[in-house]
């Protein structure tokens, strides 16, 4: 994987910031509450440490996974801690909160779809490239097991992964989540090329 310089990383961080900002706005409109986010991290991480970042391999979470298709490829993984996913479903369905029920599961997938689409459409517009989310897929299980999907994809390429990560949280602090964008290494070049042609 090619090394990116500090300026390029900053630019990616800013880009991701705007993308997640739009996703947070979409979520806040959906749930009728303000949703804030932390400063996004754009970093190269040792992929085997990802379960620890999420609070330990056995922590129960709901994960919504979407592939990114189009000019650049990769994956988007949204992780909601168990209590957050229940609170989110309950807020939207009034009375239902089981992430394993048919309604609960399809609600979480739809939320994932809305957030990923908001993020990708901003990114695509700013870079003049086409980015399309695949249909979402859901797993409700131990976080270690849920993130295997991205770890094994990334592990085929190397030991470190380029990850855009942001934590978001609603104003009442009941709904928290992690947003991960994991571009394929080849797609980093596509993104950087698009950035340069925009700037220059």
């Amino acid at each position, binding site marked *: 994987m090619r090394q990116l310089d500090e300026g390029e990383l900053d630019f990616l961080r800013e880009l991701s910031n705007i993308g997640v900002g739009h996703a947070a706005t979409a979520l806040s409109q959906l749930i009728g509450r303000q949703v804030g986010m932390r400063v996004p991290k754009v970093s190269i991480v040792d992929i*085997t440490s990802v*379960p620890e970042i999420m609070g*330990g*391999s*056995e922590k*129960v979470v709901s*994960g919504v*996974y979407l*592939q990114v298709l189009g000019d650049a490829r990769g994956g988007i993984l949204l992780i909601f801690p168990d209590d957050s996913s229940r609170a989110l479903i309950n807020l939207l369905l009034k009375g239902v909160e089981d992430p394993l029920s048919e309604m609960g599961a399809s609600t979480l997938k739809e939320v994932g779809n809305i957030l990923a689409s908001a993020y990708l459409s901003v990114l695509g517009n700013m870079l003049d490239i086409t980015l399309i989310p*695949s*249909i979402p*897929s*859901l*797993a*409700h*299980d*131990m*976080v*270690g*097991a*849920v*993130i*295997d*999907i991205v*770890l*094994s994809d990334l*592990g*085929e*390429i*190397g*030991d470190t992964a380029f990850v855009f990560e942001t934590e978001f949280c609603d104003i009442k602090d009941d709904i928290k989540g992690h947003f991960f964008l994991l571009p394929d290494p080849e797609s980093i070049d596509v993104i950087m090329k698009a950035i340069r042609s925009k700037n220059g």
Partner: protein
Amino acid sequence: MDKVVVKIADYGIAEAPAILVTYGLGSCVAVALYDTETRMGGLCHIMLPSSAVARASGNPKKFADMCISEVLEDMKNRGCKVDRMVAKIAGGARMFDLPHKEKSSSIGERNRDAVLIELAKRRIPLIAEDTGGNHGRTVEFHTENGDMQVRSLRSGTKVI
């Protein structure tokens, strides 16, 4: 009792009565190798089937072939013999339903298949497995008696 935690893409070795444990396996596969005489066990947490098909190598212990070779070498150096060994495996689930991504077999199934090939090459009998499905697993391997305890969120704990 001693608990040895095995991280993803790594292996651990312990002697009776210690317990080897690895958490949150999805498509990953846990492979326990047990020398019935020395009562020493090795536990691998593998992520990918083969170092041969990967685009880059890196940490060899993430691959079924390399991790199993390394743990066996290490166990042999500690007095174990491959011809006294038995194996138990767990994991290899398909966590997400991705019809457009995984047309034929999922990464979990490929991991399992790769492990079976590595065991067969060395004539290590596979005496128990709990693989497949769409749920995560945590595995504890008891070197005391060779039991493998498999814990999952929905179906509780079982011993294989």
